[in-house]
């Protein structure tokens, strides 16, 4: 890890005053230290926002939830209001990484972490995501890579929390010296086709200060499940977030979200259409899982994901609807 200056900040305005000349924000520091230890990121100044107390905590408002960006994944997982009304978010934060990392990692940093691709995350490979002209995953090992939107850079979206927040129609609050703006999660991530090096629309002089979640409609039920190679903890090979707006057993509206399917966390309108206006049954849940794979383009080694995602989606729909318990074969 290279040497750097650590600018300790106690206020938001103090931190904003430091965001120039390539200074990089550090909160929990988990993904940043990982990238720095690997030589992928070499910032000479870290803006330490970890101790800004006003940016941490979960607040219930009339409109929904406001979560400070420095709130840890463990704090979100254990929050009674999140557990009661935003089960998908509690599930997602509670199954991210390891217990130790959930104690350190902040939700802001979780949303801003870099994609998963072992070529990108090795400093031996000068790839597209590092501004070079070649992707090594197409001809190399690609079993963990994307099955959708994968023609430019097939790295996968890393964040479980983003799966939940997309399903909940959440937004992030971005703050700069000029003021605040709110960006919906669906518009927050930049597709690699647009620019493989840019992960989000956040500007260098902006700080992600909060996550804002609208109050779910009455009758909403939700769940998230993640599948990987280990049961104790793992990155997702397939994961599913499901939000169902129910009227009795009829689903008025559904959000079906996949994380490890594509470079940018995605909803599946085709899967959602299989549930809208219908009862939740094994049959409709299976049909939704199948519909979600329409248009999938697996690479040479990740065809299994086209079989795994429908199962993840089917079981998570039934979990959200209260018709099936948590899958013992899922991670965590």
């Amino acid at each position, binding site marked *: 890890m290279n040497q750097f200056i650590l600018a300790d900040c106690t206020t938001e305005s103090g931190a904003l005053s430091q965001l120039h000349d390539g200074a990089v924000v550090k909160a929990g520091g988990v993904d940043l230290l990982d990238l720095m230890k690997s030589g992928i990121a070499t910032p000479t100044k870290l803006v330490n926002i970890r101790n800004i107390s006003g940016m941490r905590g979960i607040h219930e408002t009339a409109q929904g939830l406001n979560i400070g960006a420095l709130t840890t994944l463990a704090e979100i997982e254990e929050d009674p209001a999140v557990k009661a009304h935003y089960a998908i978010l509690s599930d997602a934060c509670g199954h991210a990484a390891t217990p130790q990392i959930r104690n350190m990692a902040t939700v802001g940093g979780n949303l801003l972490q870099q994609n998963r691709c072992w070529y990108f995350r090795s400093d031996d490979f000068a790839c597209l995501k590092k501004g070079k002209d070649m992707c090594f995953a197409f001809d190399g090992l690609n079993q963990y890579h994307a099955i959708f939107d994968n023609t430019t850079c097939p790295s996968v979206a890393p964040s479980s929390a983003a799966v939940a927040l997309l399903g909940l129609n959440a937004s992030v609050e971005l703050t700069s010296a000029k003021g605040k703006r709110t960006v919906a999660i669906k518009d927050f991530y930049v597709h690699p086709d647009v620019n493989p090096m840019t992960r989000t629309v956040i500007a260098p002089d902006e700080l992600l200060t909060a996550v804002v979640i609208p109050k779910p409609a009455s009758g909403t039920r939700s769940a998230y499940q993640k599948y990987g*190679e280990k049961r104790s903890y793992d990155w997702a090979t397939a994961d599913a977030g499901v939000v169902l707006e129910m009227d009795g057993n009829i689903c008025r509206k559904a959000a079906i979200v996949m994380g490890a399917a594509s470079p940018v966390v995605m909803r599946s309108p085709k899967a959602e259409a299989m549930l809208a206006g219908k009862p939740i049954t094994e049959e409709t849940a299976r049909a939704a899982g199948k519909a979600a794979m329409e248009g999938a383009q697996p690479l040479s080694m990740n065809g299994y994901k086209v079989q795994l995602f429908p199962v993840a989606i089917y079981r998570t729909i039934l979990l959200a609807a209260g018709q099936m318990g948590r899958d013992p074969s899922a991670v965590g």
Partner: protein
Amino acid sequence: MSDRKSPSEDAAEQSSSPQNSNNVATGISRRGFLKGAGITAAGTALLEGVQVFSREAVAATHSDVKELGPGAVPVTLLVNGKEHTIQIEPRTTLADALRVHMGLIGTKVICDRGSCSGCTVLLDKTPVNSCMTLAMDARGHHVTTIEGLPQNGELHPLQTAFVKHDAMQCGFCTPGMVMSCAALLEKNPKPTEDDVRHATAGNLCRCGTYPRIFAATLEAAGTSTRNA
């Protein structure tokens, strides 16, 4: 960490990323990984767009900002109830501060990436990876390491139970395991086996001593009568 492999070998053979760790089971080979890279696989790639920051030009003009480093600065950390003042650079991890600068080598560094939890210590009462925590971020917190568990020369009941149940083979993961389980018992004095499994989900033991670790922890909690 002096015997760490070069990054390329690390990535191909034993990447510390959790997903990449099952190379045998998934048929990952060095050759396959490098395929497509041609003969120019190696090449330093720095993230473009990160501008070099002129150190001379640095001046923290904002009153709510205090700059440290890049060179070593004096820092006082409260570890196991005792204050230690050490000279460290901002890039020093808590694990290195403990092991190298304070001589508290009970905390082990194994993967150095937050993937194995061998380096687990408590920050206040919360288990964290000391390898992924900057020592500077431990200022103002109570750090507890494995050396801090015994009281008045007596092992912590959990340590006694680990010995009784022979809950280790090589012992390298043990300090991290004990710290994870100690934090669990502090928060939940009567855990179930599922609670113990959940609390140690991030702690990897390559010798496979998990059942004994669970048994030892349940016995220390008084929630199991199982014997070794």
